[in-house]
Every structure is written in C-alpha cells, then in structure tokens.
C-alpha cells in the first residue's frame, strides 16, 4: 500500500493517535479500553498510569514539555535535542557506565527523542524491574552530572546525527519551509537545529547547566507508565523517588509569530540528485480540541488530500505525476502549519501539481465534503486508534503528543468526540478560514541533474 515515509517529524500525528480517558481512578470511555489513574504530586509532577495486561512488560515514559520550540535564545537552536543526549551521561550515584550496565542487566529497550514540543525518555522493561527503573530515572532527572570533556564529546555525536539527516531531500525542504514560514517563532528551526549552532555546541557547557535548571523540573514533566502495573504500589514508589524533586520551571519567552499577510514562495536547492518536492504549508491554530475549526482542519486534510481524495486519484493513480501525496497538521502547542507535500515525478509538472492543489483548495472552500466520506473517515480514525493500542509502548506513543501539547490526556477524549460531531459544513468553513493564500508558504525543492 502507500509508501511509508520514515520521518518521525512528518508523522500525520492527528490521524494515528486519538482518544483516552480524563479524570481519576478507573474512568472508562467508549473508546479507550484501559483504565487510567492521573495524579499530580505536590511538586507539580503529573503522573499518568495506564494498567493493561501485557505479558509482564511495562513502558515507562518521562515526558519533558520542552523541545526545539523552547530554543528562543539566539545561537541555541538544536539544544533541546543535544541535551537529550546529555541525559545519558550519568550522575554521581549512577555514573554513565553504571547507568548503562543497569539498563543492560534489565534487557531494557531504552531510547529518547526530541520534537518541537517535547523531549521524551522511554524504557520498555519487565515489570519486576520497574522499581529499579524509577530509581535510576528519578535520579538522573534530579542529579544529572557530567564533565565538560564528556559534554564536548557528545557534541560530536550530535553532529554525526545531523550528517546522516542532511542527505535527505525531504529533510532539506522541511527545514527550508519552516524557516520561511516562521520568521519570529521558534518553529522556524528544526529539532536538529542550524548547522552553525550544532558546531558551536561544545562551547555551551555553562549554558547546559542553566537549561537543565530551568526546564528539567517536576512542574514541566509528565510521567506516563503503561503495562502490567499495580497502581497503588507504583504511585507509592513514584512518591518515594520523585517526592523531593524541587519545582522551579522557568517558562521560556517564546516570540509570537506575527500574522502572515501575503503568500511566500521559495526555491530550495539540493546538492544531490532528486525529483522535485513540492510543499505547501498553511498557518493553522495551535492544537485545541475545543477549537472546532482547528479540529475540522484534521478532517479537512484527510478528506481533501488523503488516500481516497479526488486529487490522490488524479495525480497518484490516474496521471501518475506524483509519487505520493501527504497532508496533515501536528497537534502543536503553538500555531503551526497544515502541511501538504508531494514528490513530483516529472520536473516540468511542478506548477501543474500546484494548480491541482489550488483547485482542490478552491473546491473545499466552496463545497462541504460528501457525508459518506466523512463517515468513512470517522470510522478510520476510530479503528486506527484502537488497533494501535496493542502494546504498552504503542499506547504510550499514542498519548505522548497530547501530553506535550496540553499537559495531560483529557484532550484526547475531547478530540475524539469532536471528530464525531464536526459537520461537513464546519469542514468547509475551516477550509475557507485557513486555506487562504495569505496564510501559505510554498517551497519547491529541485536536485542537481
């Protein structure tokens, strides 16, 4: 079926994750099949527990609500991601080698990632190692300690990560269009950061201490624990290991992006050989399940540009002028883009493809979508959600972006209800509001031939 793009940063987020349960003990909803327990410690640390039968596995996520969005200080792009690497460099009590050895002894599947709105540290372990996990994770979040030389070495590894990414034309155009679309707001740079800032990272040892002190605080972190767990004993352990952690989160001063007043268009060159990529981004509101026009944007993206859309049939299947067509809007914390992007097979057809996108936009601004297609989409959202809840780690990764955007999982349930109630006319109205020329940025990437 459709080719899967291996880029986490382009995930059509809203369409694979939705639904969960608000409230406290054992609240159940029609959608989410597992009970939840949500509790906030006195120091502000929010804990979300999702007990589920999982053959003895537990997924343990520490979600810091800080990502590249928070890199508002000039010269510090990419720092949230870089700092994620530093979190594996140990503490006085569990130096790096000891921390690594403990993970190895547990046979943990452990990793971390950074996006615009969050940094997530996740481990999948067996439930009899859960207590040990809480001990080492609580320790590193409170007592991280690393030498300056280690800090500088890690900067080299991060540069290596940039090297492997930059050969991708999709990454190149993604980086370029966001820089063009956001002149003030920090969504203008990618999570990797600018190459010049990555190069300068070895010199930012002192800054890293300040970064940790401001952002790695309990009032900016959510623990999400899913799997074969006992709620009472897990909560008791969390209180024991995290209870002394001092609050003190300092919110970043993120500049607001001024309203865009005219269409922007850029040409992006790519050093390798590539078919052209075309990317159109429309400014849309921040994620908010109570904002019905914004919820309608998620439906609009799929109805207008998804796999069963008219433009997909015309451009991908019948005329075969593009290789794929994708569209979606991140559930972001601040206003971001509805992204529509495609790879054009014939370099001379870029303007033609853009004209077809324009035609689609005009049609959806004028006419509500077909009711049967809207019903099919609702069914799709529901089953995509249900089918993705088969392991603790999948459950956690279905919830993380909602935690980062809103600080909890209540929004997921609201979103799902909203998907079911947004009307065809509201989808049309959302198109009329958001898909206007002065809100959009167009980027075309061409390779060397």
């Amino acid at each position, binding site marked *: *079926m459709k*080719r899967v793009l*291996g880029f986490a940063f382009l995930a059509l987020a809203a369409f694979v994750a939705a639904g969960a349960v608000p409230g406290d003990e054992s609240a159940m909803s029609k959608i989410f099949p597992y009970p939840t327990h949500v509790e906030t410690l006195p120091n502000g640390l929010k804990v979300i527990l999702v007990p589920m*039968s999982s*053959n*003895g*596995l537990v997924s343990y996520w520490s979600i810091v609500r800080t990502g590249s969005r928070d890199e508002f200080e000039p010269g510090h792009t990419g720092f949230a991601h870089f700092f994620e690497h530093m979190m*594996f460099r140990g503490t006085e009590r569990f130096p790096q080698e000891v921390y690594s050895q403990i*993970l*190895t*002894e*547990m*046979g*943990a*599947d452990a*990793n971390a990632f950074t996006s615009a709105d969050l940094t997530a540290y996740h481990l*999948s372990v*067996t*439930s*009899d*190692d859960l207590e040990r996990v809480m001990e080492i994770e609580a320790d590193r979040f409170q007592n991280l300690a690393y030498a300056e*030389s280690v800090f500088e*070495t890690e*900067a*080299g*590894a991060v540069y*290596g990560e940039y*090297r*492997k990414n930059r*050969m*991708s*034309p*999709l990454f190149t155009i993604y980086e370029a269009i966001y820089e063009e679309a956001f002149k003030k707001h920090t969504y203008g740079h990618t999570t990797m950061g600018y190459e010049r800032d990555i190069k300068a990272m*070895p010199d930012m040892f002192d800054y890293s201490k300040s970064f940790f002190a401001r952002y790695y605080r309990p009032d900016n972190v959510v623990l999400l624990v899913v799997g074969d767990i006992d709620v009472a004993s897990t909560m008791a352990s969390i209180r024991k290991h995290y209870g002394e952690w001092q609050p003190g989160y300092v919110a970043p001063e993120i500049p607001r992006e001024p309203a865009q007043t005219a269409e922007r268009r850029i040409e992006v060159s790519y*050093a*390798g*050989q*590539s*078919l052209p990529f075309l990317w159109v981004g429309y400014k849309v509101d921040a994620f908010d399940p109570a904002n019905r026009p914004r919820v309608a944007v998620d439906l609009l993206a799929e109805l207008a540009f998804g796999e*069963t859309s008219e433009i997909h049939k015309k451009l*991908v*299947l019948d005329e*075969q002028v593009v*290789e794929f067509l994708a569209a979606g809007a991140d559930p972001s914390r601040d206003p971001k883009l509805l992204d529509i992007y495609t790879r054009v*097979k014939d370099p001379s057809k870029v303007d033609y493809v853009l004209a077809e996108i324009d035609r689609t936009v005009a049609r959806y601004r004028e006419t509500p979508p077909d009711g049967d297609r809207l*019903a*099919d*989409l609702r*069914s*799709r*959202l*529901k*089953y995509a959600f*249900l*089918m993705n809840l*088969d*392991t603790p*780690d*999948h459950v956690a990764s279905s919830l993380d972006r909602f935690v980062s955007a809103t600080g909890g999982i209540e929004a997921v349930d609201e979103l799902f209800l909203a998907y079911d109630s947004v009307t065809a006319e509201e989808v049309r109205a959302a198109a009329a509001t958001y898909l206007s020329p002065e809100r959009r940025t167009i980027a075309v990437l061409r*390779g060397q031939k």
Partner: protein
Amino acid sequence: MTRASAALAAGAVLALCAVSCSAPDKEASVVLLPVPDDPTISFTVWFNVGSQDDPPGKEGLAHLTGELLAQGSTTENSYEEILRRLYPLASEYGIRVDKEMTTLTGRTHRDNVEAYYRLFTAAFLKPAFDDSDFQRVQSDAINFLENTLRYASDEELAKAALHALVFAGTSYAHPPVGTVQGLKSITLEDVKKFYREHYLGANAVVALGGGFAGDLAQRFEGALAELPSGEPKAAAGLIDVEPIERTKVIVVSKAGADASISFGFPVEVRRGEKDFYALWIANSWLGEHRNSSSHLYQVIREARGLNYGDYSYIEAFPEGGRRSMPPVNVARNEQMFEIWIRTLPNEQSRFALRAALRELASLVQNGMTAEQFELTRSFLEKYVLHFAETTRERLGYAVDDRFYGIDGEGHLARFRQMMRELTVEDVNAAIRKHLRHDRLKIAIVTGDAEGLSAGLGKDTPSPVSYPSPKSDQILAEDREIAVFPLAIDPDAISIVAVEDVFERAGF
C-alpha cells in the same frame, strides 16, 4: 528467572505450542497463532519465491510482481476502489519481497474481518495485472534506485553495495528491488508469467494470528487451492559464494558526501543451530543494534564522539536506520557478518574503520571474558522479549521458523533457552570458528573517493584529533588505532560512480 519474565516466557511457549499443535505436519500449508483476547487479526501469505529467482537481465521482476499484487487492481475491484474500501477499516496490506521469500501481510480489527478478508485474499488470488498499475509500481521502483537509494540514504547504499560485493556473481547480489536496467526491461507479460510460475498453491503457506474465530482459518487455508496449480520450479538452491582470498574494497564516489562504511564476510551459521545463538551473544556484545551496550558504539561514539552509532550483525537487518528490533520475513539461507559504521567526516573515516577492525580483531583473538559473557547473555534473555511484542511480529517469527525448519517452541523460545545453556567456552569456540578480521569485503560511500582509496591502499597512518581534551588512555589507544594494519592491496580497491551503482547487475 524473574516473575514477569517467566510469565512472558510461558506466554510465548503457549502461543508457539499453538502453532505446532495446530500444524504438526512440517509440510502443512497453514501456521496458526491464536490470541483470543487480541481484538485484531493478522494475516500473512508466504510465497516461496524471492529476488534470487529474478531472471538475469530482469532484476526486479519478483519485486514488481509482488508490488503489483499489493498495490494493484484485482479482477473484483480497481485499486482506487480497494483503497476506498480499506479506508474506513484503517487497514492496509503490504508486500515484502526478499531474497528467498515473499510475504503479503495485513492486519485488521475483528469488527471488519469479513470485509478485509475478501480484499486481502483477492489481492493474491485475483490480480488484474492492470497496465496503469504496472507503470506506477515500475516507475516507483526505478525512482527508488535512481534517487532515494543513490542520493538520499548513503548508509543504506553502502550496505547494499557491500551485499552486492559479498555475493558478487550470484543471484543474491542485486538488491531485492532490482536494478535500473533490469526494471526497465520488464514487461507486464513478464510479470504475468512470473506469477503463473511462482505464485502456486503448492508454493505458498498461509499464517493467521490474533483473535480469529469460526472457520476463518479453514477458509484461508482453502483459498490456496484457488492459486495457479502446478509443480513449483525447483528451488534455486544454495548459491555458491566465492571465498574471499584477500580484502576487497568498493568505493562509491558521490560528490559532497561524508563517509558511510559497511564491511563483512559470509558466515556459515543458521538460525536454530547452537552456534548461531553462541555467535549472537558475541555479536550483541560487539555491536548490538541501536543500543549503547554495543562495544563498537562505546569505542567510536561514546568515548570519541566520531558519529551517531556503530553496530554489527550476523543476520540480514534491512532498514536498520528505521527500526530498533530485528525484522521478520527476511529469512535467508545465506547470511553474512557485517559491521555498520554510521556516517562520519571523510577525514575520520579510515580511523573509524581501523578502530572497528581493531575491536573485531581483539574479539577474534581474545574471545569474550566470563564477565562480558554473563552480562550479555542475561541482557539478551530479557531483551529478546522486545523482538516480538505484537501478535503480528510473533506471527512473522512463526513463518520464519517454518522457513528455517525450527520445530517445537520456535526460535524465540529456543533463543531464551540457549541463553541459559550456553557457556563462555561455547561462545569463544563459535567466535574462533566463524569470525575473522581479515579477508573482508568493504563498501564505502564517500565524497573523497580518490583520497580515501589512496590512503587505504598505502596503509598510511590516520591520526585523529578532537575539539576537546581526551584522557591519556584514549590518546594511547588512538595511537595504536591510527596505524592498525589494514592490509589492503591497492589493486583490490575499485571506485565506482554513484550514478552507476545498481544500474545493472554487478559493478
């Protein structure tokens, strides 16, 4: 054993017992993995055909045939209609064409199983072989080679080039997707003929997992009778891999590229054998995939910050940059030992190659210590639980067990058993028998082909410098690494332009 891991192991045993209990006959054409409380159902059809069956000059025929089933119209529905019907189910199906096996897989919610089953089975029983669909999948495959593999993923390109070099001259050499000229020469008639010859009822096995009920399993197995009849062509058989007499290097020249390196050699050990599990322990210690426990990772990335990661393998591991656990349904009779050095600056590439070789040499010469062995085997005994957390993955392993002829509990259960039984002596004997650090094949994608080749051929020292201070121990090691002998004859190094790679079979 711990409580939780015991519970998980018991679960795995029960599930796999269900497979063998349901299909005790090794030749039976169905694999069942019932998981009653799973609300989804996973489907697989495994066809005993792969890219090694591509006729010479038509490399990519197996791939295009498979893709046309997965991304094409059937005699019941146009492809557009198939997409429309799958859409509300949030379900898809996809194909993986590997060297020796082709698997069509899919998954749906049990609410939708009948609607999905009709679409899934029609995909392989009633392909329409529509010309427009054919042109689409053909152009996608050519674009993948010409643009994506050559220009957008140097690490995968180096791995594919290494594979072609190790299996040069055999039907294993070209990537499963084919070659540019091979793909261009394939016609729709070729595809139809390939389907008639290979997609036979006698050449297929169906596999079903999850919360299925009623007569679905019987119907699914019965569907095989609707495939073309006839005797499968004789299996391609084991290929004859040329022994490596001396180290050979292929340097892929790509303007502006940093260096991406892979190297290795064939290994004569198969999943299911005792030596395989012994070697897995050694390999895990040396280079566990995407894991900081990897020794190569610690030496090259952690201590020196040269790149993003460094890993090693004893089984095929495609798409390593995109997955953290081993893939399923890439079972192969021919495997190689392989080290993957992730992208790094050209000026540090020979140092990194030497560092990896030096660690491999040390492992071959000294074996593992008792302490390293104990830590690694206890790690793996639990880590293997993450290999197949979902029904779909476990079903994939069950199919692979059939490929490898692993009876009883299956590979994953045997894996854990072997972690408990093997000794450090077993592991070190396997290292001595199967691993080496000379007579290698090396593939490098680089923007400095001439300079790198000259440095490799002359074995000139490759010192490295850092932007930050390093310990005396690291610096002392660096001096040894910088002059570690590579022993590469200048005439064993070939440079190939990136635009020529996989244009046709061979370099």
